[in-house]
């Protein structure tokens, strides 16, 4: 039987080390809403979401109470809207009406984000895809809870450079449209390579076309728990370090698995996957950068950071895979800048640069995340950064993403405040040399060779 020490250990993780379930995300297929008439399409989307998700928040809260474990977010992911709206939407404005419908539905059921204002364009853009992408700045400016993601590349198809170029422009326009709120719109917009169909984390969640009608995916968290466990093995060798991370990741993931199963049973919706991610929050003691420091770096970004992060990421997966039958999504350590106090400090002190962050993304999920850059950064430069990150994903057969926020009216040395889970960020400097000619070539980068891997 369970003993008092085990009970105390679990409760200490929850009360003092920020152990929580980061999100229960309900994936909803909207393909059966498709119709030619825009108004009818909007009605169907609203009805389907509000019916399928009506008990989501209530169920989440019930589970929270039963196990006394915080479930920070309850969210919804939906079929990429470029597919759903393709036959009804003739203009970008038409797509914006769908964004407004999604926002209304999200507010009605009480979720804090709804993801899937998305298009999958890794090889080419359909007319609808392009209309949706061009509607993003407006859509994100006039909604509160809608998140958008665009998949512009994959290992199988290469990188759609036309889409990369367009996204550089759209990120900049989104920043302009939401400049009153420090370009907050860009925090809800992600560009992906190899985007997973079952990711429960925002802003990149969407309900892939390979998924069932409705599905429950759960994202766990727990950087604070890992950090605290590592304090016990200070100065010990790598074997003990790795063993400790694995054991902790196992425990954290088991809680996620329990919550996912319970939610699935209560909502009568099948369980999809657990996303084993170390997702930080701006709260002190809930930081991935602090884990890197505990591993032995003075600050995140110091030489050795990439190796430490590679080790951390791999051990989290090894421990987590054992704890759940179905692991998916992004699964790894997240390194967003604005959402992680340790990362923010590292940037402020000059330990961490954009280039080092890029190197770090080679060995962990997900990518250049929540990075504030000067508002006067050229769209082509943003496209260049996206292209670099997509190339890392394409060649290494992993998911990579870019969520950059060009903060209009602000420059290096200033700070931007997003509030809540999105945190705050110092503006990071961007290499000022141009890539305009590269980005403007047009067309796509071919898919990489899948053999000769040396």
């Amino acid at each position, binding site marked *: 039987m369970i003993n008092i020490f085990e*009970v105390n250990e679990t409760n200490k993780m929850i009360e003092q080390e920020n152990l929580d379930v980061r999100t229960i995300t309900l994936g909803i297929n909207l393909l059966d809403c498709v119709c030619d008439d825009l108004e009818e399409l909007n009605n169907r989307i609203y009805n389907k979401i509000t019916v399928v998700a009506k008990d989501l928040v209530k169920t989440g809260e019930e589970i929270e109470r039963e196990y*006394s474990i915080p479930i920070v977010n309850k969210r919804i992911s939906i079929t990429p809207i470029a597919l759903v709206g393709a036959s009804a939407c003739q203009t970008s404005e038409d797509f914006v009406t769908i964004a407004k419908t999604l926002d209304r539905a999200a507010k009605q059921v009480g979720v804090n984000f709804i993801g899937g204002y998305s298009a999958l364009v890794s090889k080419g853009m359909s007319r609808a895809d392009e209309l949706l992408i061009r509607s993003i700045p407006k859509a994100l400016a006039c909604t509160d809870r809608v998140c958008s993601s665009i998949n512009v590349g994959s290992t199988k198809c290469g990188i759609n450079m036309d889409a990369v170029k367009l996204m550089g422009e759209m990120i900049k326009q989104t920043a302009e449209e939401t400049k009153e709120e420090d370009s907050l719109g860009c925090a809800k917009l992600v560009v992906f390579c190899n985007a997973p169909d079952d990711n429960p984390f925002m802003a990149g969640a969407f309900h892939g076309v390979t998924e069932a009608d409705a599905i429950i995916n759960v994202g766990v968290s727990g950087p604070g728990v890992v950090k605290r466990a590592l304090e016990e093995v200070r100065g010990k060798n790598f074997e003990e370090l790795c063993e400790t991370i694995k054991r902790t990741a196992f425990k954290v993931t088991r809680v996620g698995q329990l919550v996912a199963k319970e939610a699935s049973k209560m909502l009568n919706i099948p369980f999809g996957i657990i996303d084993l991610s170390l997702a930080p929050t701006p709260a002190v003691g809930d930081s991935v950068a602090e884990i890197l420091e505990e591993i032995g770096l003075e600050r995140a970004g110091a030489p050795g950071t990439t190796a430490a992060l590679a080790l951390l990421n791999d051990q989290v997966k090894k421990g987590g895979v054992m704890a759940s039958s179905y692991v998916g999504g992004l699964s790894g350590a997240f390194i967003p800048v604005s959402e992680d106090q340790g990362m923010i400090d590292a940037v402020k002190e000059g330990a961490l640069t954009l280039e080092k962050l890029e190197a770090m993304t080679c060995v962990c999920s997900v990518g250049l995340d929540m990075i504030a850059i000067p508002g006067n950064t050229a769209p082509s430069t943003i496209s260049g950064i996206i292209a670099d990150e997509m190339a890392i994903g394409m060649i290494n057969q992993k998911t990579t993403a870019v969520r950059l926020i060009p903060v209009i009216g602000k420059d290096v040395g200033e700070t931007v405040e997003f509030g809540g889970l999105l945190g705050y960020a110092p503006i990071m400097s961007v290499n000022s040399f141009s890539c305009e000619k590269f980005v403007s070539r047009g067309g796509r980068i071919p898919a990489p060779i899948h053999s000769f891997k040396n």
Partner: protein
Amino acid sequence: MKKTIITVVGKDTIGIIAKVCNYLADNKMNILDISQTIVQEYFNMMMIVDMNNSDKPFGEICSELEKLGEGIGVKIKCQHEDIFNKMHRI
């Protein structure tokens, strides 16, 4: 049978166990196991309880126990045992 773990943590004082046990008895809950320690004058108790015969819903029992705890200056927490089993048993 779904078991519930009740933990009581706080400054030691007379009658903590009595008050909690009385509440459990009044609400038809059977205690299966109790363990208790004092760490640096802090009272630390765990009970494994069978609530199946209780008429009240789980949420209500949780908040009533919480309130009871506030009255005696301790923190009382009620959780289904699954969270501990999952975490500590393969």
